[in-house]
């Protein structure tokens, strides 16, 4: 036997807040669809990019691939490769119908598209749709123009509602707890991967659904962060992490570095440099600022002290990035002129290598307010040393 569709919905009743959020999203998407002449938006979500599936369903599916077919008129249909996701979709109540997605034989998707007979389809994460699914889409909608709707969804998700901000504030609390767990466990002789194990255990106990976390330990030879290895911590190491728990679908990041024992002069100077850069970034945030302008404010601090070369792609990637249902939304980088409106959320992190103390990470997530920004986490911005009271 196979499980290919969700049982009939028991008629999930949405709270007024959930209902308002759902209607807000449908309105935003349908307005954008009308502007772009789209009959259907198809959101595709492989296991590592499920933000748009969550946006339409308020469910993060466990399956390896998921889809939502969202027509300009009518009800959305959710698909997942995993049977247990189907009831989860309908039980949450944001979609009424859910069906099994079989990538090797995606006929069920074809049937739904054939019924809609669209003339123009926008696919969110068009760039990730596998050949087998793309060919099904094209054969089920012959003659339809198929375009990318990735930017459409990214734009819709950029400004957060109060409903979303409430969830992100819960993520902020877990961020702080995760960092405390990180510092608590540091001691000479501990391998890097055991640090991650302890932090993950703490985050998951607090209800985090997932976590994005990079780490590096050592001194000024460290050039970047990666998954953990079996290196053993030594006294005097600077241990750096980007820690990004996801609660209720929403990611939020904290960037901090801690010294095993007491910091040396280079590590203190490095912290001072990075802290000034974070403060410079925060100081320029206001509605309408661009990602480019925030990055320039951060990088100008490095340039002022003669470290400008370390703001280039040879040493670093971005000076921050947006947060939300995806952890790495619009990049905060020179040359990105995306406007950051009120209630957009992003982290300011001038993380990079310098000769002062090697790769250093420091950053806080902020929300753009009417006249500036709100820092969303409460963790002190300082150079942590083991033995400190956090």
């Amino acid at each position, binding site marked *: 036997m196979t499980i290919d569709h969700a*049982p009939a919905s028991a008629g999930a009743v949405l709270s007024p807040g959930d209902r308002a959020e759902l209607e807000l999203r449908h309105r935003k998407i349908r307005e954008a669809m009308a502007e772009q002449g789209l009959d259907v938006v198809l959101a595709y979500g492989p296991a590592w990019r499920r933000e748009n599936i969550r946006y339409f369903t308020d469910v993060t599916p466990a399956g390896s691939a998921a889809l939502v077919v969202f027509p300009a008129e009518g009800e959305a249909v959710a698909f997942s490769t995993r049977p247990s996701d189907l009831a989860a979709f309908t039980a949450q109540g944001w979609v009424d119908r859910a069906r099994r997605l079989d990538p090797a034989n995606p006929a069920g998707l074809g049937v739904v598209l054939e019924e809609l007979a669209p003339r123009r389809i926008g696919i969110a994460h068009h760039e990730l749709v596998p050949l087998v699914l793309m060919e099904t889409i094209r054969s089920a909608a012959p003659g339809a123009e198929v375009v990318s709707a990735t930017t459409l969804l990214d734009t819709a998700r950029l400004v957060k509602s109060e409903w979303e901000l409430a969830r992100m504030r819960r993520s902020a609390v877990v961020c702080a707890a995760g960092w405390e767990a990180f510092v608590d466990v540091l001691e000479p002789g501990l391998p890097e991967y055991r640090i991650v194990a302890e932090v993950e255990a703490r985050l998951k106990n607090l209800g985090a659904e997932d976590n994005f976390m990079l780490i590096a330990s050592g001194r000024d030879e460290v050039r970047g962060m990666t998954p953990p290895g079996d290196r053993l911590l030594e006294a005097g190491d600077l241990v750096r992490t980007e820690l990004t728990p996801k609660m209720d679908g929403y990611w939020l990041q904290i960037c901090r570095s801690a010294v095993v024992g007491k910091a040396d002069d280079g590590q203190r100077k490095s912290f001072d440099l990075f802290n000034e850069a974070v403060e410079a970034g925060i100081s320029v945030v206001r509605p309408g600022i661009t990602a480019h302008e925030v990055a320039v404010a951060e990088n100008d601090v490095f340039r002022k002290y003669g470290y400008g070369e370390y703001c280039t792609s040879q040493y670093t990637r971005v000076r921050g990035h947006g947060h939300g249902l995806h952890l790495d939304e619009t990049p905060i980088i020179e040359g990105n002129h995306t406007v950051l409106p009120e209630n957009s959320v992003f982290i300011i992190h001038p993380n990079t290598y310098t000769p002062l103390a090697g790769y250093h990470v420091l950053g806080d997530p902020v929300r753009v307010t009417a006249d500036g920004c709100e820092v969303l986490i409460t963790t002190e911005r300082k150079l942590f040393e083991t033995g400190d009271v956090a």
Partner: protein
Amino acid sequence: MKRGLHVLDPAETPDREWQERVATLQRAMAAHGVDVALVYGDVSRSDDIAYLTNLCIYWNEGVLAIPAEGPVTFLTKLSLRVQNWMKASSKVTEFSGGRNFADLVAKYLLGRKTGVLGLVDAALWPADVAGEIGAAVPGWEVRRLAGLVRAQRLVPSAAETELLRAAGRILDHAAAAATVEGSTAGSRVETVERALRGGGFLDLYPNSLTTSDGVTSFGVTGQFRTGWVHTSRVLGDGDGWAGTLNEALAQAISATKAGATVGALAEAAAAALATLPGGATAEVRWVNQADLSTGGEFRTHDPAAVLADGEAGAVSVEVVFADGGNAAVAETVRVTEGEPEHLTGAQR
């Protein structure tokens, strides 16, 4: 993202085995008339690349280029500073970085005699990437290939089998500790995160399912080095329909032997599953460990497929009830000509 221990240990996997994995693929390429093969991977489905190189695509995407002879090259959007870490923790010596894969492939092929460019497991390549590569390499015939690397991975080597046994031991102990009486949703995940990542797992996916009569099943799929193991257990004393699921799983596992068909597992479990409450729908599945990162969901379920001696994978029984509740039981076994070797579970 993958955020557990990533190591390259010659004591676990000798250099000769790494070389032979690539050489075997190159022989398959020759048999298919392919001059250069490309393997695509992303963070959620990167095991083919890891199998050939020990590269850890911990985030985002990558493409491995394999020539007919000689060393492989990793094509990546990541910066040089991360490439240095990749060089230190993998068998890859050649890297090429840039903004998109089509340009990287074109650059890689520059100066080579045109021929056949094969996309391994082509059906699962992003259509855009495949199309852009085709447009970027005029003169080359771009050919869609089946899962050539996956085919190599279906029966693990002796070294891989030892690692799967180690993984099974760690997972089994962790799952037992996580599902003790009085455990909570938070404590279960906390326990397996600490035990598995602390035990050297690279990646893990815990998953809880519940039914309307209050039964929870707790499953974990985890990656240890380049192999995967899975278990799922119903909490509590296993009375009633939960006992039926366990019985069905035991019957399915007992039918798991070399030469048996995948369909035989479901047939063995059928009598037990027939006693499930009305309206319940059950699936019995075999997922080779080579496919566990995606739960086997990208592969056709073929009841006629024949199990091979030495193959390792998860036998699972999943049920959805008429009211939408779900439950699952599963264990990982290694196929032999007789009784399967239990890598996880009470009989391990």
